[in-house]
């Protein structure tokens, strides 16, 4: 569905992504793991169209979207849950979700999709009129996920959705990712929580300083001594 080929990203003089290639097959969960600064976010941001200086190819359903705008990419069916959630704190929960559906023209279905998101996250329904900024960290993460779902994406990219959450909430987030995938959505997941990510993913890539150093199925990587040493605490 998505295939990244020889992607390079520069920030001014910094060569952040050094020719990585990634495959995300339809209906699967693929994860990128790696230390801070490895280039996970830069990869997702490049796919979403937020990064300017880049080279290579990003094929999404046969179209090269490397130089497409984020507006175009959302409409093509890729949504992103950005790092740090980035919900709109001064807007209500409902307004946040409406923004998620901004690119859509089928107004009639937006209401029912919102109901679907509220079923997935009942706490959001209770707080529909509250400002996003008044929600707890976990609720904000649910809102960021719900907002991304509102664009009816086929591929949803998530940048560290479990970051900063209490263990119980982390579990919940991973259950939701599995549920979203169960609805037929393809997931590209970036995580620091390597163990949980590898457990849930069908395929995984390990990034180190801008390059893919290891790849394999989730099970293969969990069993790999190098991964155990570096990312799973021995």
């Amino acid at each position: 569905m998505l295939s990244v080929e020889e992607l390079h990203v520069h920030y001014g003089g910094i060569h952040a992504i050094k020719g990585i290639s990634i495959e995300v097959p339809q209906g699967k969960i693929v994860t990128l793991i790696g230390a801070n600064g490895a280039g996970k976010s830069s990869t997702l941001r490049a796919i979403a169209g937020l990064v300017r200086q880049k080279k290579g190819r990003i094929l999404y359903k046969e179209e090269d979207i490397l130089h497409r705008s984020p507006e175009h990419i959302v409409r093509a069916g890729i949504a992103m849950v950005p790092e740090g959630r980035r919900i709109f704190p001064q807007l209500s929960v409902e307004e946040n979700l409406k923004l998620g559906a901004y690119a859509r023209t089928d107004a009639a279905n937006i209401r029912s999709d919102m109901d679907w998101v509220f079923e997935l996250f009942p706490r959001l329904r209770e707080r529909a009129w509250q400002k996003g900024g008044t929600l707890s960290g976990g609720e904000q993460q649910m809102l960021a996920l719900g907002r991304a779902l509102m664009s009816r994406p086929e591929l949803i990219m998530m940048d560290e959705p479990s970051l900063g959450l209490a263990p119980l909430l982390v579990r919940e987030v991973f259950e939701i990712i599995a549920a979203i995938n169960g609805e037929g959505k393809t997931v590209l997941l970036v995580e620091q929580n390597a163990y949980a990510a590898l457990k849930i993913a069908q395929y995984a890539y390990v990034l180190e300083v801008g390059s893919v150093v290891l790849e394999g199925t989730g099970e293969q990587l969990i069993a790999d001594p190098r991964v155990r040493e570096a990312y799973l605490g021995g």
Partner: protein
Amino acid sequence: MSLAMFVQHFFNALTLGSLYSLIAIGYTMVYGILRLINFAHGDIFMLGAYFVFFGTIAFKLPWLPAVLLAVAASSFAGILVDRIAYRPLRDAPRISALISSIGVSFFIQNLAIVLFTGIPRPVQQPKILTGIMQFGAVRILPLTLVVPTISFVLVLGLLWIVNKTKPGLAMRAISKDIETTRLMGVSVDKIIALTFGLGSALAAASGIMWALRYPQVHPLMGSFPGFKAFIAAVLGGIGSIQGAMVGGLLLGFIEIMIVAFLPALSGYKDAFAFVLLIIILLVKPTGLMGEKLEEKV
């Protein structure tokens, strides 16, 4: 001071304050989205007045179409300014666009002097606005009722757009987080253009009413009202539309009441706004209703 006098001053202040508010809203909206003080905003105000002047005098248009055309043309001028002078600088340091806006302001003013000559020209008021209305001892100019009413309706319309429509939602989102707004599929440049268009339309409406109130037009007429409306926006809390309304009205009242109650100081009327600006910046830089300022200009 008699009650009748006070009522007259009240309506004068309300009129002046409304005119400031309309301009201030444009400053505050652009600031809210781009963190840019658009110094060319006062010159759009001037263009609005001139467009009506030419529409009615040179092209002999009736008032209503002349006004609508002038507002539309000014709105377009505001969008053009953004397109030419600010959009190429979106990724440059903020100070670049600020300097660009000062350049645009000089450009428009000088272009106006070349095209329209620097001579002030008298403006003919439409018939229904001439004469004086008498209520007992109170004598009121019809304009001092018409201007606040029209301004009020325009502001209501703007608030409706900002708070109840989809582009308005996008505007509010952009003002907090441009990048994430783009991820939602919003074409940010279009929404910015819309912001300039709306702000410029309000400034033009203000310029047109200003030209009727002090019945003349001249190429530099936007300067002082522009500066003062900027001060009004800072007073109210730049970035906040409600703040711009309150700041504009407050400044109008302060100016009129100073002249009314302290006639000895009336020569300093214009300076007072700038003193006020300095005081706000020292005491409460976020203004009356503003949020945290991220960067001072």
